[in-house]
């Protein structure tokens, strides 16, 4: 399968979709490169997969609504149960109390990133997180979300005040000319590092996989497939944990 061709090319109407994207949306916002329709189509495919899985899990839960212990069969609902149990446990250990109110946001971002990373393991698909625009979308929404949470929990002036004077003593204000730019740079480096880390990991992983698939496409890529699986899981997890850390740091000022 040559570069730039994926299973999407066999879809009817994909060519028109690609032309539509290139004609009406132009260059991408970040990087000013040509839009790659594969990533957009991959993201849409991930949305469809997640929505179908969620509907399946919901149907299972509705079927077992009156049972106390469930029907004992493995199902999609069990998968989501285990995943969210682990995620919520990690969130509780990082954020502390009030972890549940951030759960919908973090869980939806993690589901999207996890399934996009896993999509890249299927030969013939690119992971949508391969492109900086996809990961930057997630990271920028995290950026705005944790600032929103910080301002909501502390009030605007207290939040800014903590940026100016992180020490909290009266003499800390003498250092504000030093502290405020550093804090500002730190805050803007967060979405940058989040998006670049995810994109770089997935790109590097995919490149390694592509090189070894090109060398000998039979048994040789197996260890790198396993490595790719581990990287996909770990990167989604890291994204979630870092989001939790940022939220915890933003709202922890009131204690």
């Amino acid at each position: 399968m040559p570069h730039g061709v994926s299973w999407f090319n066999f879809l009817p109407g994909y060519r028109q979709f690609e032309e539509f994207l290139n004609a009406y949306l132009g260059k991408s916002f970040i990087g000013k490169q040509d839009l790659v329709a594969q990533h957009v189509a991959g993201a849409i495919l991930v949305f469809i997969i997640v929505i179908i899985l969620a509907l399946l899990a919901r149907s299972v839960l509705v079927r077992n609504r009156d049972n106390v212990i469930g029907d004992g069969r493995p199902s999609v609902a069990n998968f989501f149960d285990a995943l969210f149990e682990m995620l919520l446990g990690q969130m509780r250990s990082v954020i502390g109390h009030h972890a549940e109110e951030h759960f919908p946001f973090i869980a939806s971002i993690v589901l999207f990133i996890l399934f996009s990373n896993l999509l890249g393991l299927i030969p013939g698909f690119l992971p949508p997180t391969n492109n900086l625009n996809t990961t930057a979308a997630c990271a920028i929404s995290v950026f705005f979300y944790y600032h929103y949470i910080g301002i909501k929990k502390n009030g605007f002036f207290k939040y800014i005040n903590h940026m100016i004077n992180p020490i909290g003593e009266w003499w800390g204000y003498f250092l504000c000319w030093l502290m405020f730019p550093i804090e500002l740079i730190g805050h803007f480096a967060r979405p940058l590092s989040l998006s670049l880390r995810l994109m770089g990991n997935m790109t590097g992983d995919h490149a390694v996989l592509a090189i070894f698939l090109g060398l000998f496409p039979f048994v040789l890529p197996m260890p790198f497939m396993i490595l790719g699986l581990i990287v996909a899981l770990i990167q989604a997890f890291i994204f979630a944990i870092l989001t939790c850390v940022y939220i915890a740091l933003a709202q922890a000022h009131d204690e």
Partner: protein
Amino acid sequence: MSSRISKSLFLLLVVAAVVLFPVISFAEEAAGGSDMAKAEQGKFMALAAGLAIGVAAFGGALGQGKAVASGLEGIARNPSASGKIFTPMLLGLAFIESLVIYALIIAFMIKP
């Protein structure tokens, strides 16, 4: 007999020429279009890309090895604390690895 062999050989040569001609002509075009300075630049760019990821991977591997070593030592001393040690260790590994990933992105960006 001999003429048949030479005929088939000739046919083979023609097919090979037709197949290979675009490759050869494109290669000549690429080699002819670039002057000496560009080749020199490309050489150093390839060297820079390799060095960037090489040095970054060296430092990152040392740092990650140190982090994992002390994390595992802590877990070995107190296995019940493995859950509490594992998450910060993973976070630290991610932070160290992100620097290596930046170098990887730069290595990808440098195209000779």
